[in-house]
């Protein structure tokens, strides 16, 4: 089992390179999920939702690029996927306290989707802010402060998207690809 990972150190003692590696994984993982949602909403004929997820993924990619520029001179450490600290929750997973079948469905309204994305991105912001407050190494703390700024910028852009659509939103679109429940 030579490939098995070693446990990373305490979160508060992360080096700048570890901080960037952890943040990049979190952001890139969320981008991957937005891209997955873009393609599956495309496949299920909700083009507006697909386009939205494409835009959100692009915002995330810009954030990832900005974070990557914070990389210190040293190479980023190789961390096993299961040892990453800040895991991205499923953007469409039901909330812990309010799970119901209606939490996920094909004909999502655009504003509803942006609110879900905002909820998850706020969760990421909270984790990054916590890490910033707990960081003991000054250089790591400085990088985390910049990453928090980038995340806040991403939230601002999502807020702007939400403001743009809520003005036009009336009712959710018809389900153009409903599941055929009866045999």
């Amino acid at each position: 089992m030579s490939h098995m990972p070693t446990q990373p150190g305490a979160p508060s003692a992360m080096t700048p390179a570890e901080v960037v590696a952890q943040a990049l994984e979190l952001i890139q993982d969320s981008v991957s999920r937005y891209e997955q949602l873009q393609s599956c909403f495309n496949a299920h004929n909700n083009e507006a939702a697909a386009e939205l997820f494409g835009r959100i993924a692009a915002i995330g990619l810009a954030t990832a690029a900005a974070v990557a520029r914070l990389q210190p001179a040293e190479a980023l450490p190789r961390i096993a996927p299961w040892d990453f600290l800040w895991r991205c929750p499923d953007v469409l997973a039901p909330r812990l306290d309010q799970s119901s079948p209606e939490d996920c469905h094909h004909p999502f309204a655009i504003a509803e989707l942006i609110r879900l994305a905002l909820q998850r991105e706020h969760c990421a912001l909270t984790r990054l802010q916590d890490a910033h407050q707990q960081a003991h190494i000054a250089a790591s703390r400085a990088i985390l402060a910049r990453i928090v700024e980038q995340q806040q910028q991403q939230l601002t852009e999502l807020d702007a998207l939400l403001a743009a659509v809520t003005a036009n939103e009336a009712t959710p679109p018809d389900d153009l690809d409903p599941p055929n429940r009866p045999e």
Partner: protein
Amino acid sequence: MSATTTPTLRARDYLSDIKPIWCPGCGHFGVLSALTKALAYLERPKEDTAVISGIGCSSRLPAYLDCYGFHGLHGRALPLATGLKVARPDLTVIVAGGDGDGFSIGGNHFLHACRRNIDLCYIVMDNAVYGMTKGQASPTTPPDWTRSPLTPNGPGIPVFRPAAIALAAGAGFIARGFSGDPHGLSELIARAILHPGFAFVHVLSPCRTFRPDDQSDWKQGVHPFTDRARCDAEAVPALRVDDDGMGIGVLHEADPKAHSGPKDTLADADRAAAIDRIEAELEV
């Protein structure tokens, strides 16, 4: 796919250009993500990796990966993969499918794959429903599930217990993961790939379309599996009784040195001659 040796790859590099057509919120996305993370972490060259599947929503997985793949007949993924692994033991052979494909249509192959202990990693995405055919009861559907018009009073029969049955049949590695935790699942898949012998990864992968009523709470229901089974079939009753089906982690891992599966004993010349003979027979 390039035939040359690939450099260090990221998880997303293992994805093909074909976009998944799974429903929004489908658990299988998490399995795809976990598998690519595991392959990237293990630095498995694409050209040395093959993913074999049967039929069903989950069996579409090979199309979404940029490595060798084969989308076979319903329930027949394990025989195909066994043949491939015996012929090409140098390859990492991963088998993917669902609960209907693996436990019902291909149930007999599942038993014997465990028993033969060929070096395969078998990932079953269990959503306890036949999703591709619009929501009928599968072997792992609870007896009181009444949402299908085919079984309006529920299937009424006990569920298939994949982990206990795999243990009874002799599988050397048995793990259970949750698609909502792709990072944790990636560790189980990586360990399964590294295990020398048959490795079974049972993945709880919710179907948001046909089982939204009772699978939304899986996220809160899963918990670490703490009662590690013993390394023999005598542990099956305990696993069957004590396991609530939601414990995730490695349920059983036999000593890798105990692997007694087929070895690559054919010399290249012998293999070439055997292939020629088979091809000649097929032409007849």
